[in-house]
């Protein structure tokens, strides 16, 4: 293809995005668009899969049967989201195996929030309320993103995430209506998860190099700082309503801005965790590697069996 032809394709492509048309898997797209989408969608998929671990850690210890069933269902939803998103990424011409390889080798990133430990039952509340709450902020904006398969995945995922967020808040509410021990447990969880949740929106706009291009492709509809502010504004009243204190002495309603002012994020901690040195980075990846390696013989067996099946009679009913 000549340079002229590519240029004209690219112009048409940009025009379609500007017109809010969806780009589909078989449509022409610039190589950078494809690569950026593979990176973002697979990061999102990896986050869902690694995100199963901190909550999965509490399934065997839930305080009641009702909570156990709800938590199992939630973690299962996350697995479903991962599956869905890997499939969306595969439409861009990469296999799930390659994507998982990138995760296990450390080449691909996943959301840093899952590198923090889930220490008490209240963490199940805080993760649902804050982590899923922050994730929704990011994801609702992506419902209108330009790449069709990703946009459609987001519609479905957001519905479930918003259910998870309410479920998490409801766990916190039950704790705050309980005994002093339970209220302390809830406050302690908020203290530990608040700042990492704010870090989920990524670096400050000034330090976020991909923002401008991503905004043009509608892969980002609001900047990191805008989303972070919206999350703080939404969450502070929810905390106050049930008697929780946000662990930030500088937090204050600003009447002029009509937003909350809040304290400084510890960016050193942010980069430490992003670069692989958080409290659980090692154990999360180790758990994924272990599952993958120990599952290899199972996946091989399934393939070998499928190959043998083509000429066999029907099977016994159980």
């Amino acid at each position, binding site marked *: 293809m000549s340079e002229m032809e590519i240029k004209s394709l690219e112009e048409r492509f940009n025009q379609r995005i500007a017109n809010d048309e969806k780009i589909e898997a078989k449509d022409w797209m610039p190589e950078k668009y494809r690569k950026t989408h593979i990176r973002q969608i697979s990061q999102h998929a990896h986050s869902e899969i690694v995100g199963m671990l901190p909550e999965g850690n509490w399934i*065997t210890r839930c305080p009641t049967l009702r909570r156990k069933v709800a938590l199992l269902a939630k973690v*299962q939803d996350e697995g479903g989201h991962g599956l869905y998103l890997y499939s969306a990424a595969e439409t861009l011409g990469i296999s799930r195996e390659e994507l998982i390889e990138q995760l296990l080798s450390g080449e691909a990133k996943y959301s840093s929030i899952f590198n923090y430990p889930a220490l008490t039952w209240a963490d199940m509340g805080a993760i649902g309320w804050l982590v899923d709450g922050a994730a929704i902020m990011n994801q609702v904006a992506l419902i209108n993103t330009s790449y069709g398969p990703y946009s459609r995945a987001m519609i479905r995922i957001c519905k479930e995430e918003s259910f998870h967020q309410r479920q998490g808040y409801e766990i916190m509410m039950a704790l705050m*209506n309980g005994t002093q021990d*339970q209220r302390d447990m809830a406050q302690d969880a908020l203290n530990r998860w608040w700042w990492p949740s704010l870090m989920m929106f990524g670096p400050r706009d000034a330090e976020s190099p991909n923002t401008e291009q991503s905004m043009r492709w509608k892969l980002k509809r609001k900047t990191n700082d805008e989303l972070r502010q919206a999350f703080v504004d939404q969450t502070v009243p929810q905390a106050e309503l049930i008697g929780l204190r946000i662990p930030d002495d500088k937090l204050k309603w600003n009447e002029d801005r009509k937003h909350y002012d809040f304290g400084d994020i510890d960016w050193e901690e942010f980069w430490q965790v992003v670069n692989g040195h958080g409290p659980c980075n090692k154990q999360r990846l180790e758990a994924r590697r272990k599952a993958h390696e120990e599952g290899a013989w*199972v996946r091989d067996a*399934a393939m070998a*069996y499928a190959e043998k099946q083509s000429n066999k009679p029907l099977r*016994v009913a159980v």
Partner: protein
Amino acid sequence: MSKALIQYICTVADNNLILGQRLGELCGHGPNIETDIALTNIGLDLFGQVRSYFQYAAKLEGGNSSEDTFAFLRKENEYKNVLLVEQPNTDFAYTILRQFLYDVYHIRFMEHLQQSNDETLAAIAAKGVKEVAYHARFSADWVRRLGDGTKESHRRAQQALDDLYTYTDELFHHNESELNLVNEGIAVNTAQFKSDYYQTIHAVFSEATLQVPDQKYFLKGGKKGIHSEHMGYILTEMQYMQRTYPNMQW
């Protein structure tokens, strides 16, 4: 009569509870996402049934009892699950074989429980039977894949079968109070489908190219409250919150 019925409900529900607990340990650690989701789903079904059983038992018992006092606040020897379901997730072959040996029993059990003179138990079974039919299809498919897959998967599946087969006979044991409930048409007479159970599992093993172990001795105890050494650890984890923070609402 009510006491015997409560006891019976526990022997039925505890199998699901402890197997569900074992499956819960695996959530997020499966060999691929599909099997991870499927095993979690089976665990969810089992816990859903447990809630119905224990809600009924709590209603019969009255007082301060609830589904959670039954699930979390009994002593080890008061749990009446069979030894099979408390066996560990040694590897995926053990998980699947344990599931299969239970599912083929469970589906037949639920089909019969649907005919119980006790309306609540019959209703729980009518709802659960569809779920359990799926569990049995899933585990039987995987027994075939593992048995007739690769050399390595065959070896592991055979090992799991050899180790777990000894726990199958206990599924069909009845104690005296259960036999009274069988006579009243409330409890399931499992002897009715014992030979069908063994014929079915043997047929699947044959398809899966697995050898049925030449078993002369079978292990038992769980149904009488005498468990394996695994049970204490299962309960320690499961009961942790209720024991550490007693009498609280969650």
